[in-house]
């Protein structure tokens, strides 16, 4: 994002800060994941100057094991100007920007509810369950996040998922939807490429190895690594094709696919 940030990113960052401030009492058990976390890592090294087409939601992953019963998440969000959206876990601020509260599948309680997470005292509507976020509870680091609007001087320090966890989460999202093409966002694959480009292969492999060693994240990480080759292993793989489309007309499609397959093959090599 060279130059002045796109207004869409300014709004998204502002909504993120609204939510972080509202949930301040629980911030130590929350990790920022998703596209906003990825942009914090890739920053200005981003090679793809794609125009934002829709608002980037702020995705929060909650660790329910360490979450205290009060104050209630829903009360804090309502007080902070959010209203509950149509889907479990979706909270909308006054500008219409969404913040999604999510709980890693392995910790989301009874599977009777397909989408919502059971957060006991906090209820079953406040957050939704998502597979692949387990890794974010282990691979994360505190970062200072500031507003992008120059007239907004807010900033907050919160946990941001590391590149290993973000990669695992993105791969799960793409793999889950690979057979429902209409729900796929091409941008998700470009985000994978951004992560692969912005992180040293050795660093990424080290993070994934740690995730493989922990009981909580071992199985989702194994599954993600197994999905690397079918999704991104060759120029005609679905994930590579998605990234090419998302990179837009300004990017050389051959470069996008060659880079992606090269970086994936480097990563797999580093993991053996």
């Amino acid at each position, binding site marked *: 994002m060279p130059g002045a940030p796109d207004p869409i990113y300014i709004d998204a960052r502002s909504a993120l800060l609204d939510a972080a401030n509202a949930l301040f009492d629980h911030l130590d058990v929350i990790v920022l994941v998703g596209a906003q976390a990825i942009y914090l890592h890739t920053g200005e*090294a981003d*090679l793809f100057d794609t125009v934002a087409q829709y608002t980037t939601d702020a995705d929060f992953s909650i660790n329910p094991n360490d979450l205290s019963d009060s104050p209630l998440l829903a009360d804090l969000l309502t007080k902070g100007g959010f209203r509950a959206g149509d889907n479990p876990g979706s909270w909308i601020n006054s500008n219409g920007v969404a913040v999604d509260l999510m709980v890693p599948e392995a910790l989301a309680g009874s599977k009777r509810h397909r989408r919502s997470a059971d957060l006991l005292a906090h209820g079953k509507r406040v957050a939704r369950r998502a597979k692949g976020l387990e890794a974010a509870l282990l691979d994360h680091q505190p970062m200072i996040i500031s507003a992008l609007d120059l007239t907004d001087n807010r900033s907050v320090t919160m946990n941001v998922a590391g590149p290993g966890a973000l990669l695992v989460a993105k791969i799960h999202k793409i793999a889950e939807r690979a057979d429902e093409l209409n729900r796929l966002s091409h941008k998700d694959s470009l985000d994978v490429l951004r992560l*692969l*480009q*912005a992180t040293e292969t050795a660093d990424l492999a080290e993070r994934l190895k740690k995730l493989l060693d922990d009981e909580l994240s071992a199985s989702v990480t194994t599954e993600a690594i197994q999905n690397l080759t079918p999704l991104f292993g060759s120029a005609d793989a679905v994930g590579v094709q998605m990234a090419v489309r998302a990179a837009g007309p300004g990017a*050389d499609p*051959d*470069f996008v*696919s*060659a*880079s*992606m397959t*090269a*970086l994936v093959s*480097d990563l797999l090599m580093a993991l053996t």
Partner: protein
Amino acid sequence: MPTQEMPREIDIIRNAERTLASTLPTGWSIREANQRVRAGDAQLDLLIEVLAPNGERAELAIETKRTIEPRVVPRVLDRLAMYCTGDLSDAVPVVAAAYLSPRSREILDSAGVGYIDMAGNVRIEVSQPGLFISSTGVDRDPWPQDSDLQSLKGRGAARAVRAIIDHTPPFGIRELAATSGASAPTLSRVVELLDREGIVTRETRGPVLTVDWEAAIRRWAADYAQSTSNTPMTFLEPRGLPAVLEKLDEADPVYAATGAFAAQSFDPIAPAKTATLYVEDAARFADRLKLREIETSANVILLEPFDPVVFDRTIWRGGLRCVAPSQLCVDLLTGPGREPSQGEEMLRWMQENEDAWRS
């Protein structure tokens, strides 16, 4: 053809007449005027009348020469001007020769003088009656003189031409050889070639007095090509060109950037999509920077250079070590894609910043 003997003056005259007769539009004709045209002791070689279908006529005052090296073109022009006075003040001056080099044709053209050679190059423009004949033949002398250097191909000649462009005259050959590391005999032969082409002037057996450096670069570009004079290998840096810059910074290897990658530090309008770097040993360099060899979709091109001279007089621009502007210019003019037009931009930059690259 090279074994053929140099055409005689009479062959050149016959060729000029034949060429005119065969290229005139239908209804036009020519005839040799029997008038003798003199200027002092000299006599014009050929005066031809051109007749238009409507009865209008024009005269072509033709001076023949077996060879015309660009440096003697001004003298030929002076002589033609002497003939084209009085009765003949409306006559169109034309030079006929066995072979006219592109540079000679360019000079004649800009002086408004027509030409006909035996290698198929013709340009005649008559305003009254209106007539325009133009065709391009070959750009190589079919009758080269064995003793003369004919091209700037080859590492020695290229190294010498770099030295001649990069140094401000006047300079002697020995002196230039000592400061540039080019061999004195090669320098001397290259200076002779550029002298014949009207690109340098020198005192007889003395120092070089002037160098038209832009013409020298263009002349060099005619015999040079970025991708064939050097040996290229293609690679992929999957993290893109910012990662290439970072690695160059960290590893600090011996390299010199050229092409669009270097040009963007002079003219940032066109961001490069490929990094082209001169390196001594492409395979070792790629190993060190962890680039992967790839045939298509490469974004890094490593060139093993025609001569180590590409590493001489490099300049730092925005954290990148770039080849000397003269080298960059010839690489761009003969490079892929939009690079030739960036080469023209580079020539302009060199004109405006001569102090920055010439000494």
